[in-house]
């Protein structure tokens, strides 16, 4: 069975890349054809209208597509989660210097960010912070981070979208003051000497639902071999013994750039957070593997609440029933 699967080149595409490249899909009788997509909107439309059979997809975007809030409405379901976490907020070095947080913990950094953002908004030159799509955990994490410092993000900060591969250039040109994106793009901005990782997604929202496998509800049963293949591939990816090989694979086949050491660090959670080489260790920075694959009921409620808090829907309770049908843990056999 041929399956066309769309993905966006990111560290958390590891399970789909491993499934295609290391034989997990073939062993389940699947000819897995991967299609790197230039934007989330492209991936969503292609999946919704049948150019793709499956996708590595932002959990909120897949749910929004099901709810008819984003792009062509489609009966998408998520038989499994591909990962939890993986995002971070990176700010430009001048912004970090101006923020001058008293400590490096989340509360101190969020307060410092909020203070500076309010000051800049007061001067009529608000900070510009980038995210990846309105229906993304990145957008929600930015808002939660701001609130933690006592800031109403929508009022004080200009939020824009910059495609992650362009974030380094946008930072260099001063078009943005910071961004919330997924691995490895935060680390790439640090390695380029332009950014300081200010906060990790996993400390803003622990075990945040990030990417899911999205398929059409009508095809979900037929695609259970794909779910099995991705479950096995994801389990392989999470095994520390395979980190070196996986980093090489993501560099070579996943379109994540030549720096395998940098990719390896995003997989193990040993992150370099500033250009002087300061390191932080966060084992939960990006969680892959069998312990994260089963969709969790609390995640669909969380996603609905975030949509409501972001003004994308009026009331979380209205969509909870649809959200319930969105996650299909029963399709994950293992």
């Amino acid at each position, binding site marked *: 069975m041929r399956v066309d699967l769309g993905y966006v080149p990111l560290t958390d595409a590891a399970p789909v890349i491993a499934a295609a490249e290391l034989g997990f899909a073939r062993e389940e009788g699947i000819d897995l054809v991967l299609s790197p997509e*230039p*934007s*989330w*909107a*492209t991936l969503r*439309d*292609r999946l919704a*209208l049948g*150019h793709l059979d499956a996708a590595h997809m932002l959990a909120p975007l897949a749910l929004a597509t099901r709810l*008819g*809030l*984003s*792009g*062509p*409405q489609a009966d998408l379901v998520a038989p499994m989660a591909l990962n939890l976490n993986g995002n971070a907020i990176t700010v430009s070095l001048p912004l970090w210097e101006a923020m001058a947080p008293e400590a490096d913990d989340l509360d101190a950094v969020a307060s410092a960010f909020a203070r500076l953002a309010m000051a800049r908004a007061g001067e009529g030159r608000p900070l510009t912070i980038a*995210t*990846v*799509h*309105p229906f993304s955990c990145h957008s929600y994490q930015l808002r939660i981070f701001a609130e933690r410092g006592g800031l109403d*993000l*929508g009022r004080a900060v200009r*939020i*824009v*979208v*910059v*495609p992650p*591969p*362009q974030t380094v*250039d*946008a930072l260099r*040109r001063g*078009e943005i003051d910071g961004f919330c994106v997924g691995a490895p793009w935060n680390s790439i901005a640090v390695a380029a000497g332009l950014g300081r990782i200010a906060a990790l997604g996993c400390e803003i929202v622990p075990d945040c639902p990030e990417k899911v496998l999205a398929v059409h509800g009508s095809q979900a049963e037929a695609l259970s071999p794909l779910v099995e293949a991705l479950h096995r591939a994801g389990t392989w990816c999470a095994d520390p013994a395979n980190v070196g090989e996986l980093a090489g694979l993501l560099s070579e086949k996943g379109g994540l750039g030549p720096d395998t050491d940098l990719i390896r660090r995003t997989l193990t959670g040993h992150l370099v957070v500033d250009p002087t080489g300061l390191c932080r260790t966060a084992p939960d920075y990006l969680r892959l593997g069998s312990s994260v694959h089963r969709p969790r009921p609390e995640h669909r409620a969380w996603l609905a609440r975030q949509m409501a808090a*972001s*003004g*994308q*829907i*009026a009331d979380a309770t209205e969509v909870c029933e649809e959200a319930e049908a969105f996650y299909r843990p029963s399709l994950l056999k293992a």
Partner: protein
Amino acid sequence: MQIHLPSRYRNPVSSLSKKHPASMTETSLTVAVIDPSSLRAAILEEGLRAAGVDSVVVVPDGPDLQARVGALKPDVVVVHLESPSRDILEQMSGISRHVERPVAMFVDRSDATMMQAAVDAGISAYVVDGLRTERIKPILDIAILRFNAFARLQRELMEAKSELADRKVIDRAKGILMSRKGLPEEEAYKLLRKQAMNEKRKIIDIARAIVTAADLLG
């Protein structure tokens, strides 16, 4: 043809839709065209102008796209499906009280065939909230026609190129046969054709084999 969200989801009608009274024809619309291929963008621009849309602006698919689209305040944005900038437009048109929204997401629920045809042709569109179906449909029809014609031309060009490349290989193979076997050109070609028939292969395959062998054996 636009999103028909329950009114509680909806933002206040933007000033843009107020700009155009319903009676105006589509010549009064401002259409932005965004495409990583500047040639394809130019072809669409020309098509829209020919159809009477006066204000067509090709916006470069570059870093200042948001500022340009924001300043232009287009009624319709026609963007190639594969533009990496599409997520930028989605943020600008996002269903959120927090964002400036020059455009609203184009979602055609009433005409699924049209939507499929647009996406198949590689088109996505964003329209200002409140713009009526009959004003958008002709623009999308033109975009679909032009994009499909462009894809066809590109395919033909590719085929022509590969034909030309094949012709060059066959000429080289003929040249090799002529010099090695002292044959006139016509005989060399006949020999190629005969070999192809005997082996039930294409002439180009035989020619490639000869060229490869000659390259290897010197």
